[in-house]
């Protein structure tokens, strides 16, 4: 088995030098997600803004809802840490609805059992995780931060009450 098929250089770079790491204020929602298999955890905060001004809470993300910041504290393996770093790069500054589409695309890639053909225009550095989908035990690692982000964003837009 070639380790490089799982650990692409992009992943190792993000692992060694994570982007946007650390918890920042202010934030609209904070969640803590845990992978019960290995004990890895991520605490993740989301800050939203409305490009029309104001912050429209309630009823989910609107077309004008933009991800102002994602900050996180991740304890875990290279895959889970790199994934949090790539995620924050991808969604900060984008409309939340677009972020959700990236999330869906990434989730589909992870569930593709190595068959998925990632779209670099959508996924950016996250295409490097395509190989992870061949390692069932590691898919949760790659998804941990994404699940946390989706949950936090749903809470911040008022679509979901905090747990």
């Amino acid at each position, binding site marked *: *088995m*070639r*380790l490089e098929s*799982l*650990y692409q250089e992009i992943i*190792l770079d993000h*692992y*060694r030098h994570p982007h946007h790491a650390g918890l920042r204020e202010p934030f609209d929602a904070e969640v803590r997600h845990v992978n019960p*298999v*290995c*004990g*890895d*955890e991520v605490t993740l905060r989301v800050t939203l803004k409305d490009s029309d001004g104001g912050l429209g809470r309630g009823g989910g993300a609107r077309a004008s809802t933009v991800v102002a910041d994602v900050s996180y504290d991740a*304890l*875990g*393996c*290279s*895959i889970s840490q790199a994934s949090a770093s790539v995620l924050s790069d991808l969604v900060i500054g984008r409309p939340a609805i677009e972020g959700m589409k990236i999330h869906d695309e990434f989730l589909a890639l992870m569930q593709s059992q190595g068959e998925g053909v990632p779209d670099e225009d959508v996924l950016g550095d996250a295409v490097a995780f395509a190989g992870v989908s061949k*390692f069932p035990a*590691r898919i949760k*690692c790659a998804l941990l931060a994404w699940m946390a982000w989706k949950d936090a964003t749903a809470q911040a837009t008022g679509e979901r009450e905090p747990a």
Partner: protein
Amino acid sequence: MTLDVARIRKDFPILERQVHDGTPLIYLDSANTSQKPRRVLDTLADFYERHNANIHRATHQLGEEATQAYEGARARLAAFIGAAEPAEVVFTKNISEAINLVAYAMGNASATGQSGRFALGPGDEIVISEMEHHSNIVPWQLLCQRTGATLRWFGVTADGRLDTSGIDGLITERTKLVAVAHQSNVLGTINPIRALADRAHSAGALVLVDAAQSVPHMPVDVAALGADFLGFTGHKMCGPTGIGALWGRRELLEEMPPFLGGGEMIEDVRMERSTFAPPPHKFEAGTMPIAQVVGLAAAADYLSETGRDAIAGHEHGLITHALEALAGLEGLRILGPTEPVDRGAAISFTVDGVHPHDMSQVLDSRGVAVRAGHHCAWPLHRAMGVQASTRASFYLYNTHDEVDALVAGIGEAQRFFGAGGR
């Protein structure tokens, strides 16, 4: 008596396997589940091919053969652990079910207002330890929630031993049960069960021993340990999955109310209420995993004939080697005793800059199978101040070359992740 490991390895067909297109398998995950010798595999096939029938109720030759094989297996397992009689061995699907059996039976005793040693209520206490597997923590938490009893526990010292310094305040006249592991599945620590049992008994408490990690690896004698209950599981001792056992002292099994209700565990059933069979059948509701019981006895025979002292001696050599070799690696921290004293052959460790998941992935790429994570002992990992660890665990079929392969793989992981080391 020393082990002829080369001959033993020939008994385990899976050890001839290669993984990842041509890498020989180096299986260092036996504390998770052990591999199975040909004799156990043949016994399972032979049972299904020649003797398969339900037990205790089929009035035909196959039924008699199956019953004989099943009850014969009970007698062999009773002898294997030094039980006074076969009826003290109750078959369960694994040790988790064995522990839950006692916990739910105590819950039933409490709910039906029975007095006596199994009934619990507010003010009563159950004592466990911080180094327990989740299966010896969660059932007691649930029991305490149901009954209002209080859960208390021994801590763990920095070097991974049971911290008994507070034992006087911990085991008191309020203690109803002390439940501890004979050997930690993470640290390898072998706990002083006899001394704990004597203390518990002098306080009037019962003692349950989680022997999942000891029965496969060393001679275990329930009378010498001074236990009241002892659980173990088949798949960690060269036996099939889906079968384990609870040993209990006869008078306790007689007094204890049942856990699962159903067929075969009854004496008489009326629409209003039922009475129950004597132990062990009182605790074996429904059709049991018959072939697995017979396979488990074949595994016990295999271990006995190989020699459990010899197995323990061989594993002692492997863990001594591993402790020495790993102690020399930069950035590596061994969780648990670093001296091979009162210590079994499981070794968990962390390596600076390489997460256990990544460590196990690199090792797997070289054919070395280990476990990464919290090994179902999350509170212990928190107590040791780590998120997760990598665990290598040895058994009778492992070699010193395989220990060296582990060490080389750790070095490779350090290089790959640029985490120092050599």
